[in-house]
């Protein structure tokens, strides 16, 4: 009995050991698998891409990714003899997931530079990680939070942004509204979240500085299904309606604005083109005709870089690019140029960052250079929806070249204002407060 028991115990132990050995073997195969792949992978440049590829912002993520891949494919995924390895992760539009994926890409996959990022909340979270872990971060998605590239508590020596920031697109809109259109009194309508307040504040501040005035502000929540209540309470003495409504909100607002009979009575100036977003145009049809919008890009630009980009993008995605594709493309270009400048040696990270900040190239958006904080300086366009060859398109009607992140203010002027956008929701009609100095 005892013998038999001990024999059973021993055979159990053997079986366990055998299982454990098998598991170890399997684990070993997996662990060796990754670094053991191609022979030249040791000196490949690993780029960790962080984009929302599922959830509400999947379309933005997908378009940015297409832009990134288009550039790297155009240089055959090779820079200065180093292969470029893209490690793409889905952030699901959630800041905590974005940081987890950033860690994974850097600490497990060996990513040497991070790029992409669509939401400002994700950008803030990853910015923190990048600063702490000293990993270069090239923002090339929609994330537009202003302060991340300004001197202050968020400043990060390991960050550059080639996409945009929230305020400049709005500032260009204000300049055009005041100087070209001669509008003096406008109503603003913005989606009620940090981005909306940031952007509409920038418009109101610049507009006040020029001499105009916002006479009414409306803040529909994000994902407002019905704009009827907002449109019918608009102050009719406003010379124009200035809007910032991203995503499906822009589509609904554009349609309902026309349906409620405001088209032809009150022009729309659409900051960031939430209404005049390229995928919306065909759906809005004639309702979109005549909508003015402000952005740093339009697929209608007649430059060789842009025409080649649009043709290739159409081939890959079957549709016209909006702003995300060119942003992704510019981010990839900046990384490649900086890698070339340091000869593929990314160990000295600050040297690599200096190379990133020194890039200068022609992009589909226009010429790209960065300021000393790593924020892009680029051209802003005012566009108008017109019919071109039977198709609705955002035709550029004005442009403001070389717009830096503080434009039209100087850095010192901008820093001298007392209130930041965070304190100004509900006070955009108050020019005195908008322009109050410290």
């Amino acid at each position: 009995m005892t013998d038999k028991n001990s024999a059973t115990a021993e055979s159990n132990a053997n079986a366990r050991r055998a299982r454990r050995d098998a598991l170890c073997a399997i684990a070993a195969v997996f662990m060796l698998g990754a670094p053991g792949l191609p022979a030249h992978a040791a000196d490949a440049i690993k780029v960790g891409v962080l984009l929302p590829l599922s959830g509400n912002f999947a379309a933005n993520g997908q378009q940015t990714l297409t832009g990134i891949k288009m550039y790297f494919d155009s240089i055959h995924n090779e820079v200065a003899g180093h292969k470029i390895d893209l490690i793409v992760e889905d952030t699901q539009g959630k800041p905590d997931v974005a940081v987890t994926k950033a860690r994974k890409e850097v600490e497990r996959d060996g990513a040497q530079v991070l790029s992409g990022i669509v939401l400002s909340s994700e950008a803030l979270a990853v910015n923190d990680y990048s600063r702490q872990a000293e990993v270069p971060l090239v923002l090339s998605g929609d994330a537009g939070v202003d302060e991340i590239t300004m001197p202050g508590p968020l400043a990060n020596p390991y960050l550059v942004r080639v996409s945009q920031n929230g305020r400049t697109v709005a500032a260009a809109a204000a300049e055009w509204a005041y100087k070209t259109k001669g509008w003096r009194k406008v109503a603003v309508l913005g989606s009620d979240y940090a981005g909306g307040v940031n952007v509409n504040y920038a418009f109101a501040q610049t507009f006040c500085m020029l001499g105009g005035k916002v006479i009414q502000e409306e803040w529909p929540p994000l994902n407002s299904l019905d704009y009827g209540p907002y449109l019918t309470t608009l102050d009719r003495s406003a010379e124009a309606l200035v809007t910032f409504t991203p995503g499906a909100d822009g589509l609904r607002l554009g349609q309902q604005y026309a349906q409620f009979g405001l088209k032809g009575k009150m022009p729309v100036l659409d900051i960031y083109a939430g209404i005049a977003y390229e995928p919306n145009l065909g759906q809005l049809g004639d309702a979109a005709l005549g909508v003015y919008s402000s952005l740093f890009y339009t697929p209608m630009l007649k430059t060789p870089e842009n025409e080649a980009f649009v043709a290739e993008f159409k081939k890959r995605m079957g549709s016209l690019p909006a702003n995300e594709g060119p942003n992704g493309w510019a981010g990839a270009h900046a990384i490649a140029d900086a890698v070339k400048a340091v000869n593929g040696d990314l160990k000295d990270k600050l040297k690599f960052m200096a190379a990133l900040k020194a890039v200068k190239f022609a992009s589909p958006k226009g010429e790209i250079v960065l300021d000393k904080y790593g924020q892009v300086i680029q051209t802003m366009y005012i566009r108008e929806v017109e019919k071109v060859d039977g198709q609705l398109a955002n035709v550029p009607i004005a442009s403001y070249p070389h717009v830096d992140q503080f434009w039209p203010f100087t850095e010192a002027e901008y820093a001298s204002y007392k209130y930041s956008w965070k304190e100004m929701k509900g006070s955009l009609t108050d020019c005195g407060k908008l322009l109050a100095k410290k």
Partner: protein
Amino acid sequence: MIWVIHILNGVAFGMLLFLLAAGLSLIYGLMKILNLTHGSFYLVGGYIGLSVMRLTGSFALALVVAAIAIAVIGAAIERFFLRRFHLDELPQTLLTFGFLFIFADLSLWIWGGDPIMLTMPQIFQRSVPMGYFSYPIYRLFLIVVGLIIASALWWFQEHTRLGTMLRAGVDDAEIARALGINVSLLFTLIYATGAALAAVGGVLAGPVLSLYPGADFDTLILAFVVVIVGGLGSLRGALAGALLVGLLDDFGKAFFPEFALFTVFVPMAFILVVRPTGLFGRR
């Protein structure tokens, strides 16, 4: 004039909410299932309508095909999944929650992430002038359709044999079964009908509210508010709740824009305090 516009607007939105809430309420009343998949029925129904419209250009056909397709999907979900957990609320709710995610990802995969607005039939693409503003005819059409469907449902519940069985089933499923009513078939039928109503709602809402990833969650929440306000399990409650929520939402946003985020939720909380079972709910 502004008042007329606000009232029409609130009623039109209420009618869309009614289509969602009616199914949700019937399903809960009969089967005690808190059907979270209802949001998916709305969104996927809308997307199926979109595909039909792209193929044929017919809005009417889009409505019919979407309703039938979603009814079949709904029936299958009830037969093969929900049935296993009869009266077992937690597994049922979790199951319908799981389906909500599955359908959300499937739709993203099939129809993409860009917001899409369904094209409305040509004859509704105009607006009637109303003072400074004008009012879209399509929304008037929504009000008419909503009223027709509400009357049809009421007639079905009060004056048909199936409706009588439904009422019996809602009152006491076990006794109804003992009386020889095929409760099992009734469950499938009602679940499928509720799903089809949501799909019709999705197609009808498509030209106004647009279809986008996340529309399933957004509308589901509103539909729940409606049934909570109106009382779970009651058709009359669903209609009253839908109209009330539609109007409150519109007037609240127009006149108290600072409270836009909870124009709907504050009245709901208030009604729950005064009448915990909702306006027409049973105790």
